[in-house]
């Protein structure tokens, strides 16, 4: 194949859809490496600290779509201290210097400033798509910059970001000449938007297919907008709690009925039960429904809606739906592929109307179920075994029993057998999160059966180092391992050090690893960054003893080390492979060994 002209090779490569395939072909020979890198259009960086931004943009100068992820997953649950890192700046600056043809940027769990957004808006004349998920550090001023300078903007998708609100004017910055919008999602913006500006923007966006509003948008504004968007496929409603005006809601229903292409509905912030029947005419055509921000709807409101959604594939709902409600889902939504049941009470051992019964009902009624996130009050091995038999197609299985270490509700036993059945039956399982009382046995099962598992989340589980080692040794495709409050220590940490180079990252917090163990790991594996974070009291002590070590990323520690503080437990450990060396933007509570 090396005798083909490069254009032909490039054309052949264009049929390779996945990043890993393209990565593989680039390793074959120098010619292929060059052809591949110059023709690469999409680059995915799973850990922003695994590689230097400059290196990425120099290797792929013609990249059109860049995706970068920052903080570790447990940052979602406040386990990563603020100011840890994950800054978007270096990436945007590097791209601004070396690939001005950039059209799409997607970032998750990163810190993005208004200055970054301003630079982004001014640097890429063909910029089309901005997706920010769970990011922070910017305000509506940054959005104004994007709106005013990105003349070809197609997608502005803000999902669950923490955005400082500096007023409604940002939306008015879209110039009259901007008519290219396909997707606009500002549901996470806390403040008001100018409804006139919004209506005018929608009126001049004939290609709009996805629109997600925030809470401030009234029913009347929504009705006016929907009249302009008969081709809308995805809608996030605004405020449905307005004082109940039958006229307004009647207008809304008639506008909704014209949206024959509408397949996905979300929003419903604190929706009043009275408004729910006005949505009924849409239900039969919906494939996606997100009611998980609506604690005001109870089981009967929810079931009346869901029972009409016979084509539903994706349902996100609160546990107010209760087991009975899930039975209704099971009998009505035969095409269901993804279910997420969120808690409405955020306390440990909080009340929940959802138990193992709901899950069993869903599994027997919805055999296509492949993705599950389920917060519940209790679980049993019997239920999990039944679920595993009914739904062998699980790709993602995340179960959270609200009370840590809760045993089987019927037998009082650990839930090892139940989760063991899941990993044994669901041969394609890629992601697993577990909870409840679990011993080393469940990890033995996981290591033995979960051959395709890529991501595993463990909390309050296991008895000894053997548990973690079974996973490390058995799960050949493991990429991300995150563990909290489990009794795994240095022996497990150091049991298979070569494994970490095949993984994206390891997170361990409130476990039994010691500073010494981490130092040994750092010294044996120079291709890893070993970051430790200790609570307030610990770190200052460490500063005194290891002041000279803070700048050194390679550390050789003798096994006969006398310093007994090395046996102090490490609060939080984050290990990841990297070609970039120790990062220089770490705050002082992070020690890189």
């Amino acid at each position, binding site marked *: 194949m090396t005798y083909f002209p490069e254009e032909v090779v490039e054309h052949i490569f264009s049929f390779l859809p996945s990043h890993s395939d393209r990565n593989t072909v680039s390793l074959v020979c120098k010619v292929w490496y060059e052809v591949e890198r110059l023709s690469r259009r999409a680059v995915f960086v799973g850990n922003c600290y695994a590689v230097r931004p400059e290196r990425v943009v120099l290797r792929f100068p013609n990249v059109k779509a860049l995706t970068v992820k920052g903080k570790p997953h447990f940052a979602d649950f406040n386990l990563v201290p603020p100011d840890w890192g994950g800054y978007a700046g270096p990436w945007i600056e590097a791209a601004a210097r070396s690939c001005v043809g950039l059209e799409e940027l997607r970032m998750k769990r990163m810190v993005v400033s208004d200055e970054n957004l301003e630079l982004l808006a001014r640097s890429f004349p063909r910029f089309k798509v901005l997706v920010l998920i769970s990011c922070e550090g910017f305000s509506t001023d940054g959005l104004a910059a994007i709106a005013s300078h990105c003349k070809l903007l197609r997608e502005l998708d803000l999902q669950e970001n923490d955005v400082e609100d500096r007023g409604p004017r940002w939306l008015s910055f879209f110039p009259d000449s901007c008519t290219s919008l396909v997707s606009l999602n500002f549901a996470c913006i806390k403040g008001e938007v100018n409804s006139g500006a919004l209506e005018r923007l929608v009126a001049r966006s004939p290609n709009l297919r996805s629109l997600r509003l925030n809470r401030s948008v009234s029913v009347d504004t929504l009705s006016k907008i929907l009249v302009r968007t008969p081709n809308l496929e995805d809608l996030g409603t605004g405020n449905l709690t307005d004082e109940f005006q039958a006229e307004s809601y009647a207008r809304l229903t008639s506008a909704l009925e014209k949206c024959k292409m509408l397949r996905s509905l979300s929003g419903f912030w604190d929706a009043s039960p009275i408004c729910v029947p006005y949505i009924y005419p849409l239900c039969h055509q919906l494939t996606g429904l997100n009611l998980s921000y609506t604690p005001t709807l109870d089981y009967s409101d929810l079931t009346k809606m869901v029972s009409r959604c016979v084509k539903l594939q994706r349902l996100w709902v609160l546990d107010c739906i209760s087991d009975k409600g899930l039975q209704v889902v099971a009998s009505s939504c035969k095409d269901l592929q993804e279910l997420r049941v969120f808690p409405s009470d955020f306390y440990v*051992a909080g009340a929940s109307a959802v138990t193992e019964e709901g899950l069993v009902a869903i599994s027997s009624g919805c055999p296509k179920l492949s993705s599950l996130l389920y917060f519940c009050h209790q679980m049993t091995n019997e239920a999990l075994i039944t679920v595993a038999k009914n739904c062998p197609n699980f790709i993602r299985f995340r179960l959270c029993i609200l009370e840590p270490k809760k045993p089987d509700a019927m037998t009082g036993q650990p839930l090892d057998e139940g989760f063991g059945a899941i990993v044994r039956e669901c041969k394609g399982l890629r992601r697993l999160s577990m909870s409840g009382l679990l011993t080393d046995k469940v990890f033995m099962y996981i290591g033995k059966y979960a051959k395709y598992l890529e991501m595993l989340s463990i909390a309050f589980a296991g008895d000894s180092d053997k548990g973690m080692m079974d996973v490390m040794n058995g799960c050949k495709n493991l990429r991300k391992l995150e563990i909290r409050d489990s009794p795994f220590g240095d022996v497990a940490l150091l049991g298979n050090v070569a494994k970490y180079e095949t993984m994206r990252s390891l997170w361990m917090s409130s476990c039994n690893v010691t500073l010494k163990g981490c130092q040994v790991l750092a010294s044996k594996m120079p291709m890893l960054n070993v970051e430790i974070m200790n609570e307030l009291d610990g770190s200052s002590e460490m500063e005194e003893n290891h002041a000279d070590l803070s700048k050194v990323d390679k550390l050789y520690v003798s096994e006969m080390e006398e310093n007994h503080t090395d046996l102090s437990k490490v609060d939080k450990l984050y290990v990841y492979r990297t070609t970039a060396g120790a990062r220089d933007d770490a705050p002082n509570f992070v020690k890189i060994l």
Partner: protein
Amino acid sequence: MEIDADNLSATELRLGLPGTSSSDDWQKKPSPSVGAKRALDDTRSEASGTSPATAGDLDHDTAAPPKAQVVGWPPVRAYRKNTFQAAAAAKKAEQQGGLYVKVSMDGAPYLRKVDLRMYKGYRELSDALDALFTKSISAAAAAAEGGEHQHAIAYEDKDGDLMLVGDVPWDMFISSCKKLRIMKGSEAR
């Protein structure tokens, strides 16, 4: 033979003065699971910056197991938690806060303010307004030479329209009323 623990307490040897009971000191520890306890300690030490307090501190307030907070558990995104808490806080503020609106009366030299939440219905509001503007009302009555001194109460709603008070249910009224205006009988026609 059953040992009656309650009765035995009477025979318990203690160093306190007669009349003092030990029940206040008795630390009734709830039985949270071990893992949760460790996490609880972490939470409290993180929150207060001091070494973990004894389990007894939590117990004094409640007989039932306290609603514990473990950092990062349940694993729900901060965005979701904040959204719910913001909504709950807003609701609370709405329920507890006063709802003061300006009241103007044609011909009166200055405006007044009333807290709509103080009244349970239109009757009470009407009486209160009468009381507030009693001087102006009687002055207008005198000036009107025995003609109409009935007044109509109107309000300005969210959309800025002038509406007659009394058409909609009270709760709906107070959620949409921005301003009150007492109009002379002759204008109200």
